[in-house]
């Protein structure tokens, strides 16, 4: 299918260092303002705090003055950016140049949705920002001030931080995303093998000690934007890179550990059932999930509604039948639908009213299945979705072998 055409510049080795005299946020805001003023951008889409409230939301803004209330890194992820962007561009591209400033996992979601034809990026500049993680929504609702403080703390140190969401604590894609490693045994994080990066432009904060912001063009498109703004430069990103590497190493190993832990916790029918015991079938996890793109979910459809007799029958066999029905069918089914596209953003977990660690379970499932298919969601725009392609000779291990024979697929050269 699609050939993975490589972009000229795959990883931001060089870029522009912006001094951040009056704070990182305002430096970024100023940069965006400049782009709007110089008409390099017609609009910006980014998180903003609704004045006199604690509520965060997405704004598609053209009026520069509104930038004041915006923040590229809000303490929480109320709506997944990819989903928000999809709402805007599902039915065709914005005819004007727009920058979408988002967390890396949101950018990944956007690219995944591009492959699923749920989003149009033609005139969008995807701008990712180094992300310290987001705070649990519940915590924030309970005590916005305290939680915001804790977030700023995490933001300034980039160190271990117990207060950000668990999925963020183990997220190794907190900066420019890298390909999924295909050899799960190997415990060092993967290197970017020059794949088409998810974002056009990356804003590096790590290694800048709060005094520097790194503008890193990741694609030709991103580079062009900087050129037009006379911000093209070859400043070394060494500080950023080395620090990112270091953090990535740490978080990657944490992720591995967490994956193992969650696999153990969900091992076997009873454990798995226990994890989802509290599920009330509200399907909020599905609604909040950026890559659960179906407008009519299979598990909500009448395809799964049966006669009272059949329910009685099932109850009879088991001794009882639990309602809400088919909780596991929903969750495991959802895994088999979207695990390969899961970007571990944790939106589902934030959305769960019963505090089920659904985000952590799906992250584990995502990591492991993506390893199996050597696929990274939302990284390479030209990389086809695993279930839309095939090789003639693959996955022999899942077939019952033909007696005295090698895997049938190997039988002979075939043209496709």
């Amino acid at each position, binding site marked *: 299918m699609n050939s993975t055409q490589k972009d000229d510049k795959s990883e931001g080795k060089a870029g522009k260092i912006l001094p951040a005299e009056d704070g990182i946020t305002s430096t970024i805001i100023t940069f965006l303002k400049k782009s709007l003023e110089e008409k390099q951008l017609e609009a910006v889409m980014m998180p903003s705090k609704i004045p006199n409230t604690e509520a965060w939301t997405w704004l598609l803004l053209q009026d520069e003055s509104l930038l004041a209330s915006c923040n590229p890194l809000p303490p929480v992820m109320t709506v997944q950016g990819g989903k928000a962007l999809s709402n805007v561009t599902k039915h065709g591209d914005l005819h004007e140049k727009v920058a979408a400033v988002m967390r890396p996992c949101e950018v990944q979601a956007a690219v995944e949705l591009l492959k699923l034809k749920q989003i149009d990026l033609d005139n969008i500049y995807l701008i990712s920002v180094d992300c310290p993680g987001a705070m649990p929504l519940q915590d924030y609702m309970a005590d916005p001030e305290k939680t915001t403080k804790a977030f700023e703390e995490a933001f300034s140190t980039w160190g271990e931080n117990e207060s950000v969401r668990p999925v963020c604590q183990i997220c190794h894609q907190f900066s420019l995303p890298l390909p999924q490693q295909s050899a799960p045994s190997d415990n060092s994080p993967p290197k970017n093998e020059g794949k088409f990066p998810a974002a056009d432009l990356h804003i590096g904060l790590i290694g800048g000690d709060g005094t520097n912001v790194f503008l890193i063009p990741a694609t030709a498109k991103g580079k062009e934007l900087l050129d037009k703004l006379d911000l093209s430069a070859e400043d070394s990103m060494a500080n950023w890179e080395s620090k990112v590497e270091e953090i990535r190493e740490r978080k990657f190993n944490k992720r591995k550990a967490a994956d193992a832990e969650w*696999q153990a916790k*969900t*091992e*076997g*029918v*009873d454990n*798995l*059932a226990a994890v989802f*015991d509290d599920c009330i079938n509200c399907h909020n996890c599905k609604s909040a999930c950026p890559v659960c793109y179906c407008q009519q979910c*299979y598990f909500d459809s009448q395809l*799964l509604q049966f006669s009272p007799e059949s329910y009685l029958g*099932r109850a009879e*066999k*088991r*001794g*009882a*039948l*639990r309602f809400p029905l*088919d*909780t*596991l*069918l929903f969750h*495991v*089914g959802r*895994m*088999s*639908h979207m*695990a*390969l596209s899961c970007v571990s953003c944790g939106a589902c977990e934030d959305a769960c009213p019963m505090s089920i660690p659904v985000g952590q379970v799906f992250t*584990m*499932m995502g990591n*492991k*299945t993506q390893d*199996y*298919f050597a696929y990274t969601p939302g990284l390479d725009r030209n990389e086809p979705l*695993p*279930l839309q*392609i*095939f*090789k*003639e*000779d*693959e*996955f022999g291990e*899942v*077939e*019952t072998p*033909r*007696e005295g024979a090698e895997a*049938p*697929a190997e*039988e*002979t050269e*075939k043209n*496709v």
Partner: protein
Amino acid sequence: MDQKFEPKIIGFLCNWCSYAGADLAGSSKMEVKPSLSVIRVMCSSRINSNLVLASLLWGADGVLVAGCHPGDCHYEQGNYYARRRFALLKKVTEILNLEPDRLQLSWISASEGKRYSEVVNKFTEDIAKAGPNPIAQNPKL
């Protein structure tokens, strides 16, 4: 577990190869265990996790997906897609240890009546050894 446990196995068979293979097993009067209930579909690629998983979670002791050998698909490529989907679901159940061994994918051609009986009987034995599907026992599911 009761002594003579008769596994209930769902078998999704493609119309052109595997279902024909099953017929041949019958017309050659080969003994095949009654454990497997055949559900005929036009192509193995009609099958996806929605069907297999539901069967498993609703209490099937085993699920067999059978189609034409790679390269033989009556619709040219169907079984390749079927294999990928199956591989994903199998992986998911392996990761969760959600009875992965109760899911099986086999290629059975129209001339392989013998293989059909072998596949079904072997699968039945394995399942019989493994015992009933615990999911079917669990009142919480």
